[in-house]
């Protein structure tokens, strides 16, 4: 079978499997990417503005951790792809190419075998929608043929996400209904946001300052943001102006 046909077929099957309830759609698309693009893992983040919440979906734990780590550190190929609107290919995250993100590069060792990391922006027109990141456990760049496969996968992802907004055609109020993948509550994100609010009052500072203090603390302690956020909410951890 034609290589691209296989990609189209796998992506289409993911859409079909998600069906009318789109709550599983982003994760199924990530899983389809793994198979279609012959990579070890894939993660997708949907976001509009890096200052606010993002929702992430992943094919597996390592991909999820790689994505979360980038959000915690505020650096990495996925965030660069979002910011620049350009693909960010990294042949080896743990090698010299990864030195653009020194903290991520040195921390990524702990995630397991993550070497080649490739991030692609998801955009609609001028507006960024998020990004797709795939990784391989071996170093090396994607071959041109693989890039073409990525193009088919990105088309399918964009179409599926746009279509998921359609809701029920003609139904009253459908115009403002959000697809269930966006409606469902993301518990981790909620806690981080609540902690940001608390730290804003503790520091008498705006959200971005509170966020970077939380990030700095999480990184220094080697703990995930959500764990730090829970400590703040439980009043076990306070930040002070200095």
């Amino acid at each position, binding site marked *: 079978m034609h290589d691209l046909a296989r990609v*189209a*077929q796998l992506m289409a099957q993911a859409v079909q499997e998600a069906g009318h309830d789109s709550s599983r759609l982003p994760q199924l698309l990530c899983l389809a990417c793994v198979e279609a693009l012959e990579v070890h893992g894939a993660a997708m983040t949907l976001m509009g503005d890096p200052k*606010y919440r993002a929702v992430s979906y992943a094919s597996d734990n390592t991909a999820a951790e790689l994505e979360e780590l980038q959000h915690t550190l505020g650096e990495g190929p996925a965030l660069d792809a979002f910011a620049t609107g350009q693909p960010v290919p990294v042949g080896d995250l743990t090698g010299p190419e990864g030195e653009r993100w020194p903290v991520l590069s040195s921390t990524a060792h702990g995630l397991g075998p993550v070497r080649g990391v490739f991030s692609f922006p998801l955009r609609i*027109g001028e507006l960024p929608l998020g990004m797709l990141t795939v990784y391989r456990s071996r170093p090396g760049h994607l071959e041109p043929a693989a890039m073409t496969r990525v*193009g088919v996968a*990105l088309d399918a992802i964009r*179409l599926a996400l*746009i279509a998921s907004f359609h809701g029920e055609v003609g139904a009253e109020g459908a115009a403002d209904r959000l697809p269930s993948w966006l409606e469902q509550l993301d518990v981790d994100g909620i806690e981080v946001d609540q902690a940001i609010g608390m730290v804003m009052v503790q520091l008498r500072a705006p959200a971005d300052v509170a966020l970077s203090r939380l990030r700095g603390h999480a990184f220094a302690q080697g703990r995930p943001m959500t764990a730090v956020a829970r400590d703040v909410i439980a009043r076990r951890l306070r930040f002070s102006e200095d």
Partner: protein
Amino acid sequence: MSRGQAELNEAYASLTESLIGDYDLADLLHRITEYCIILGVADGAGLVIADSRGSLRDLAYSDEGVRQLGSAQLSWNEGPCVECVREGRAVGETDLTGAGTRWPRFAPHARLAGYTSVRALPLRVRQATVGVLSLFSSAPLSPTPDALSAAQIFADLAILAVLQDQAPGRRTVAERITRALQSRSAIERAKGMLAEAGGLDMDEAFSGIRRHAHETGRGLTEVAQALLLGSVDVHVLASQAHGHG
């Protein structure tokens, strides 16, 4: 940067243009017709949409021959595509040489364009047929059910994307994602602020924000944004929340 790295970057940059570019619906729809050919379900493919008044128009086609066959069917009001919309079911003809009586004008034109078989698949939204995927072949093709189903799924998504795109006064999908995430972040952050300022738990803080929104006739997101920006003083609101507690 090494020479190899520079060449690599250049290769990625040129691929970027063709792959990512700017989202352009027409371009994406055109690629859907190409995917049908890649999937081996057709040699030429076209997408037609029925607009709100029920008239049909071309959305995308893989080549000029398909476009002409599509628009000819619409002007003659004859052919598989027209029949597919009218009857709301898949219409096919595996041998167009014998279809002269069924479609006296369409069949000879299709053969002249080099096609010997045609398949028109309905694209439905809530039972209503709102478009057609036309698949033309110049040789007997035997597409696998999976490939045919993939083509149908892409075509269905394409129609939904078009309907989404054309809905009047509707915010774009990217704007709606951004606003939904911003609004949720703002409300949770405002809850955190009020909880900290008033020594409240998150539910009490949420009640305080809701009460203020109700009393001032503003939306929750608006009140949350005002707290975040400082135009509503969190300590004042916290003392009010205590008064109610």
